[in-house]
């Protein structure tokens, strides 16, 4: 049985027809063709599927889209990795990841960047411990994390209040 969900993704209002229990991750990838969010575990442990979601109270929160039934995204405002850069201009976080070698295979990277965005929103000048905690839900198999932490530290110096662009 299908249901119609209205939501805003990367600044664009859109509707999807989907079974209400279809995972938001699958709706993003299959219905909206936003394949930046990835499935690494399907159980909310790896963070590859992380997106930012505001469920209508003005608070954009980092969430694992593999754990959200699309019905619960009704009326939500969502930012995926595709909504982070401002057209041709990389977001400072993305630029820092590039400069510091914070991405190798790239599978964890969309989630890492959104987790970083969420972290810097809450803690504009994070300590290493806060960075580690903020990114603890995002697993990386390639980099060994050190370059990611350096990228985050550098991104924190670029601007104290970051906003996503669509």
């Amino acid at each position, binding site marked *: *049985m299908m249901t119609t969900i209205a939501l805003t993704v990367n600044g664009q209002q859109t509707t999807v027809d989907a*079974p*209400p*229990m*279809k*995972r938001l991750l699958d709706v993003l990838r299959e219905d909206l063709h936003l394949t930046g969010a990835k499935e690494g575990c*399907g*159980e*909310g*442990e790896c*963070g590859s599927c*992380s997106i930012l979601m505001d*469920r209508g109270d003005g608070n954009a*929160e*980092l*969430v*694992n889209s*593999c*754990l*959200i*039934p699309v*019905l*619960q995204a*009704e009326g939500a405002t969502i930012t995926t990795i595709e909504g982070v850069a401002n057209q041709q201009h990389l977001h400072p976080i993305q630029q820092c990841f590039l400069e510091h070698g914070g991405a190798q295979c790239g599978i964890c990277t969309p989630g890492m960047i959104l*987790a970083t965005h*969420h*972290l810097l929103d809450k803690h504009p000048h994070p300590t290493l411990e806060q960075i*580690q*905690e*903020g990114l*603890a*839900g*995002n697993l990386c198999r390639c980099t060994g994390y050190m370059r990611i932490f350096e990228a985050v530290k550098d991104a924190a110096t670029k601007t104290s209040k970051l906003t996503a662009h669509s």
Partner: protein
Amino acid sequence: MRSNVDEYKLIAPANLTAVLQALASDPTLTPIAGGTELMVALSAGRLPQKNLLSINHLRELRFITTTPTDITIGSGTTFTDIRYSAVLASDFPLLVQAASWTGSIANQNRGTLGGNLVNGSPAADSPPALLAYDATVTLISATAGAGNIAHRTLPYRDFHLGYKKTVLAPNELLYSITLPRKFAGYHSYIRKVGTRNAQAISKVALAGLALVEENIVTDIRLGAASLRETPVRCTAAEQAVLSQSITPATIAAARAALSSEARPIDDIRSTARYRAAIAANLLEEFLHQLTQ
């Protein structure tokens, strides 16, 4: 093996009254809040409950209210909400600490205190603190077609009946958790032992509160995870310490008492032997802190 999402029904009645009416009319409905438990089962093809009721959007369940004598937390309050509550940080720091090591930031943003309790895992992160703090829980329900909402309140320590089994009736929702503000001056302790600092389900966890007056322990509460098939108060260990001063003999007696009442198991995360040893060590660590 994936679930076939077409086989699942999910409805989201607009408000709490409508949700309770839905539950009253159809007690086979299973509520889903943040989804951090049920959606894992769905992804793994292991969610037998096909008839689901979303309560994630209910603002009526997401609150933290304060009176001079207690703080009441709505069942839909997220772990993030708990972490950012100044009044919980000052009066109930063990609960805030437990919320901080639940899953990861993304899970804390979605997971709810109510879901943590209703899911009923003995390894859950919030129960040890809630048990130590003498929490009470309020359950609500409606009768089909009738306007009134029934409440019942009970001690949280009576909420869990067995492994993932609670006293909740099929037409009931957990509404709120109330904590009495009577622990000023208590020593407090909480520790979770797991494989990582985040995203780890506990092998063992222990929460402790104690009042020490002139070297005598006049009150002590111990809440534990992963030592029995439900979260438990370690009452035998408490009795071994109550009205005593902390000496090597008291510590030995407390350790022995804890070993007698703990019935840990071997499972995917740990062994009974490890759990028993570590639980006793956590207790000793707490008791040593009481002498400082």
